[in-house]
């Protein structure tokens, strides 16, 4: 079929006269909004700021690592840099990212609801997120924290001379934002679906949000109380996790990873949901094996709770425990692989167009596969012992977190940008930055696999001279990656004013969100829609229009 879109409008689309964006222009109308779409935008703006902060810390680290000697910053500063990079990127960017922005914005639209079940809680969750974020960033301004994002005891609770208490307080508060978001999503999915929107007609993005929300709901409280215990131990000098006072530091690690491993799936499951939307739309093909993709999300959520011990193979936990955790970790690979295979099979006989969101989707498939396969190396106890605390680990989780989650987040921004703003991003620049990010990412992190395998430890500000060539490659890649992230910021802001007007459905995508105007009206649907077909019925859609591009909006009842 004929899909040669270049971002220019193919219809004389007009901006709708009123939308959620025109419903009040005052600061107050934004800060007190209960509209899920506006809250999604609030999150997007704040996330961008935190992402920039975490990115700046990363850039300073990569500059330091361009030379073997520790010459740019002091060792202590370097410790604070990697800690703030980890904390900000994980707790303030990756965990909220896709759920808080696109989950908030799209979930009600996708299932045909007027809002999330609890709009006030939704606004509260943004305020909690901001409060937590401001506390955490305030600590950085006030001198930083040097424990690493994992807060291992007894260093964090007894010996560290940095401001641990305020940092964990910030994360504690932000955690409740996560819990409330998860709660809202679960109830909304159960109780707010439009007539005809059965569980197996929901877009797979909704399934992955549901699975993510389950983890947010059940794992985050454990992190909250664990960090609170660290705070109590530090403030009162008691020995909950301090072996010198009868406590057990391994218990802290168990409790911490009971959240923090499932948190990996909080970060990557939403990305997988985005993938299912992108791959189907840009190959004009129904998803291959809908039920398998849907249930693999739940399988990942459930199995994700049973594998935390693979972070602790060298901690002194029971050997048999280690074996079980290793075996269970291998099991998680199955649902993850099911997804990758099914996206690939979806492409078969599809009509593929390489627009920007699809480039990110292809990037995700490749990078997530590398990240996932190296995860299998790490799930093997013997190999893990060899590469524990080396750059191999750093490379592995960046392939999942950046190569997976951030690629999908960027893909989602481009795919739904017309829906969020009513305007198209510039396609050429979009494609160019997507390729730049892909190239920069690989140049940054692939050398780190080799460095780690050769034995370069993580979290040191200096290293042996023989590692320099690979480190310089990595730092150079980081520069390209950084540029790749700045470009979209520039052209997306540009497009707010100068981008072509998108019309309701510029990508001719399926899904209820595309049946509304772009940007959608405040209450989403004048009449609650009645759903009569499966998700991703691209075949029927293209058959009806004979593969022609149609005037936006014509293809809906």
């Amino acid at each position, binding site marked *: 079929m004929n899909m040669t879109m270049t971002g220019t409008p193919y219809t004389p689309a007009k901006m709708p006269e009123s939308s959620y964006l025109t419903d009040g222009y005052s600061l107050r109308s934004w800060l007190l909004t209960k509209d899920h779409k506006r809250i999604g935008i609030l999150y997007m703006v704040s996330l961008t700021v935190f992402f920039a902060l975490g990115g700046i810390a990363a850039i300073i680290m990569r500059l330091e690592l361009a030379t073997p000697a520790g010459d740019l910053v002091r060792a202590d500063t370097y410790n604070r840099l990697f800690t703030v990079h980890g904390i900000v990127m994980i707790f303030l960017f990756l965990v909220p990212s896709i759920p808080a922005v696109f989950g908030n914005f799209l979930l009600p639209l996708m299932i045909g609801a007027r809002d999330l079940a*609890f709009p006030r809680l939704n606004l509260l969750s943004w305020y909690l997120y901001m409060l937590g974020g401001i506390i955490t960033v305030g600590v950085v301004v006030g001198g930083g924290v040097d424990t690493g994002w994992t807060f291992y005891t007894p260093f964090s609770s007894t010996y560290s001379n940095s401001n641990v208490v305020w940092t964990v307080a910030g994360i504690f508060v932000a955690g409740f934002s996560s819990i409330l978001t998860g*709660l809202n999503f679960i109830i909304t999915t159960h109780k707010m679906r439009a007539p005809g929107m059965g569980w197996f007609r929901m877009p797979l993005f909704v399934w992955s949000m549901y699975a993510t929300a389950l983890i947010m709901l*059940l794992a985050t*409280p454990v992190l909250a109380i664990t960090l609170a*215990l660290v705070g*109590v131990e530090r403030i*009162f000098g008691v020995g909950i996790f301090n072996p010198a006072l009868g406590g*057990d530091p391994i218990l802290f690690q168990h409790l911490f990873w009971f959240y923090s491993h499932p948190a990996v799936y909080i970060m990557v499951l939403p990305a997988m949901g985005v993938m299912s939307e992108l791959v189907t739309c840009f190959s004009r093909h129904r998803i291959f094996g809908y039920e398998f993709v849907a249930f693999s999300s739940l399988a990942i959520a459930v199995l994700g709770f049973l594998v935390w011990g693979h972070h602790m193979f060298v901690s002194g936990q029971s050997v048999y425990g280690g074996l079980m955790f290793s075996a269970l970790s291998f099991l998680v690979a199955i649902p993850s692989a099911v997804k990758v295979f099914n996206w690939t099979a979806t492409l078969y006989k599809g009509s593929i167009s390489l627009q920007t969101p699809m480039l990110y989707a292809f990037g995700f498939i490749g990078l997530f596969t590398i990240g996932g396969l190296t995860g299998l190396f790490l799930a093997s106890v013997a190999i893990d012992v060899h590469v524990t605390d080396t750059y191999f680990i750093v490379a592995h989780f960046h392939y999942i977190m950046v190569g997976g989650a951030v690629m999908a987040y960027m893909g989602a921004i481009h795919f739904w940008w017309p829906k969020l703003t009513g305007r198209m991003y510039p396609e050429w620049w979009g494609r160019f930055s997507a390729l730049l990010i892909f190239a920069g990412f690989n140049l940054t992190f692939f050398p780190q696999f080799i460095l780690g395998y050769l034995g370069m430890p993580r979290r040191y500000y200096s290293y042996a001279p023989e590692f320099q060539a690979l480190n310089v490659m990595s730092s150079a890649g980081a520069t390209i990656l950084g540029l790749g992230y700045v470009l979209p910021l520039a052209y997306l802001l540009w497009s707010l004013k100068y981008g072509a007007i998108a019309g309701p459905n510029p990508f001719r995508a399926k899904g209820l969100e595309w049946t509304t105007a772009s940007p959608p009206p*405040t*209450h989403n649907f004048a009449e609650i829609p009645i759903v009569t077909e499966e998700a991703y019925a691209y075949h029927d859609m293209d058959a009806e229009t004979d593969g022609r591009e149609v005037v936006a909006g014509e293809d809906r009842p």
Partner: protein
Amino acid sequence: MTTDHPATLDAHDKGPHDSGQPRPAPYGLAHHFEDLGQQHEAATLGMWAFLATEILFFGAVFLAYSVYRHAYPQPFAAASHHLYLWIGVTNTAVLLTSSFAMVLAVHAAKTGNRRQLVGFLVITILLGMAFLGIKGFEYYKDVQEHLFPGKIFNLHDWEAGFWPVDVKSAAGIEFLRHAELFLVFYYIMTAIHATHMVVGLAIMGILAVKAWRGRYTAEYNDPVDMAGLYWHFVDIVWIFLLPLLYMVRN
């Protein structure tokens, strides 16, 4: 049966989508729900989901407690022995009675009996405050006996026989360290529980005022219903705390 509905709800509850339609929204229905039944189901499921997070929240502390009780059974028993079981039992009775009053309040709400609703909410609040008062008195007595972790505990010159070991010996110092760990958990668990009580009392206070003003009807009383679930949950947590803290003495 109250009929004096307030003329204005807050802005959120006035669905603009209704403006063009003659269909009047039932009292208490938020704009994004189709009917009160859907709203009630969403609220109920939401509350249960929230309580699930609470179980995980308390669960982690219960787990940590259990690990240490398993590791140090004698010091835990000895420290538990010094808590006031009679105060704990009294407080249990007070709290259970407040939960009973809450059940009656929910019943009154569902039958639209405003007077009873306000009355039972006030009784629930008074019993909850009594619980906190008794708990505060108990904390006072505990601290008086130097049963508070940190300097108060460690710098105290324990009289012979207070602990079943010689506290000057190396083994005795080790023993005290673990007894102190018990106290750490005693204070953390009861303090988190008390925090939940305070939050519950604040919510109940708001509910009582709103109930007095006739904001709840036989058809719309979800907030009372949900507060009831929360209050019973806080009650059940205490049911677990009582044996774990006061009854592990032997």
